[in-house]
């Protein structure tokens, strides 16, 4: 199993959710985050003083999928979240050793 983490633009969340649902992914966890990458923050003025906002609002989604689905999930997120502009985000994948559904106690792929 893989745990796929993607950091995307907040307003792309709905598109990504719909795309993943279309793929049969049945669960997702979302966190409000801030971040920067090549898309550096912006310069703003507040009460006459310039300052750099280093972190921009993003949304992090986490999806646990079985190994077969991993590649397709990444691609789906990538195409649903992309706008072609800087700040589109990143996708990371780590190996997921265990998964358990609390209600039933199922583990492994069953639990996803």
């Amino acid at each position, binding site marked *: 199993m893989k745990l796929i983490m993607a950091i995307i633009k907040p307003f792309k969340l709905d598109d990504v959710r719909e795309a993943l649902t279309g793929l049969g992914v049945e669960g997702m966890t979302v966190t409000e985050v801030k971040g920067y990458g090549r898309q550096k923050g912006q310069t*703003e003025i*507040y009460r006459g003083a310039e300052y750099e906002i280093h*972190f921009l609002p993003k949304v992090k989604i986490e999806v646990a999928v079985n190994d077969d689905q991993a590649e397709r999930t990444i691609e789906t997120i990538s195409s649903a979240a992309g706008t072609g502009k800087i700040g589109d985000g990143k996708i990371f994948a780590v190996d997921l050793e265990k998964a358990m559904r609390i209600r039933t106690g199922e583990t492994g792929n069953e639990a996803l």
Partner: protein
Amino acid sequence: MKSNLLKITALGAALSLAAVPAHAEVSGETAFIFNTLSFLMHGFLVMWMAAGFTMLEGGLVRTKNTSMQMLKNIALYSIAGIMYYLIGYNLMYMDVTGYIGSFSIWEAVDAGITADGFKEGDYSAGSDWFFQMVFVAATASIVSGAVAERVKMWPFLIFTTILTGIIYPIQGSWSWGGGWLSEAGFLDFAGSSIVHSVGGWAALTGAIIIGARKGKYGPDGQVRPIPGANLPLATLGTFILWMGWLGFNGGSQLAMGSAADVRDIGSIYINTNLAAAGGVVAAMAMTQMIYKKVDLTMALNGALAGLVSITAEPLAPTPGLAILIGAVGGVLVVFAVPALDKLKIDDVVGAISVHLVGGIWGTIAVVFSNADATIVAQLTGIIAIGAYTVVFSTIVWMVLKFTVGVRVSEEEEMDGLDKAELGLEAYPEFGHGSAKL
């Protein structure tokens, strides 16, 4: 707000309740002070409504547009005051030909205070100006709520400038300025049509011309609700408006210098308050019945719809009738909001449903309690004011659209107006202790 002529008629009707030696024992100067005080005291209550609109709208937009809503409202209140001084007041009240007053700066010549003593109903001209001025601002606030979250700031403020300086005053001259509508017998005590519907019509044309927020309506016509970010703020705004409305309607008695006048102001307070109460209860009952859940935002809109509905005639109804008139307003708003959505007219805060629908209903409802009102005259006023405001607003919005543009870019809309147009956030913090993100 109506001319003194109209007022005296209305009083005549009201007085039939009890024989009153009106003004018998109050000296001319004392009456002058009372009348002026009424404008001032009720005026600061109406001024407070500016805060009410701001909080209401601030609570019903998304966080990313909240600061902009704050700015637009404090700016429009400022502009309204300045414009009403520079052009508006005299356009509405000075040498009205029937259709329009004169283009000139307002100057306080306090005609009321003369060496020859005081005439019945005299008050200080400045206090009247102050009271009238806060009404104009209310009209502009209505528009700001409807077109929130996508209109560009400066074009919106240009529209506000024209609305408060020209559009509102001209139609105001027809009725309160003593023009043709008042001659035609049109009655609108405190402005269900003259203030609220005008704001509502301007909001409607704006909402249509600017278009709906991105994502509000799905491709197959489905409606995607965009919940307001801060309901306590919206509730606070509603209470502020409720309080201010006592001044809005109460001060529109235009006099407090006799026992009968102050008694009437009391009746107006009661009816205004109970109409709002009726609106709340009706909206709660309706949403419970239709949706099996009470909707807080509809209850708030219900209160405001009740207030708008009673505004055209807050004096003549019995309290029981006031409750009913307000309740009908509350019911109407529950239906109007989804109906507008079906038409894909995107009104962020329900301003059109409250102020336009409620305003029309309230103007009609005058006939139920005021014997001097005729349905024909009322409809004449509703239609004339509506047609005028729609045409004039459309022209202004259209000119703005094809010159400077009225709508932010899609990306700016996504990022929110706070970031895009103001470069700041309403709640900028992230991480309880970290200030400098």
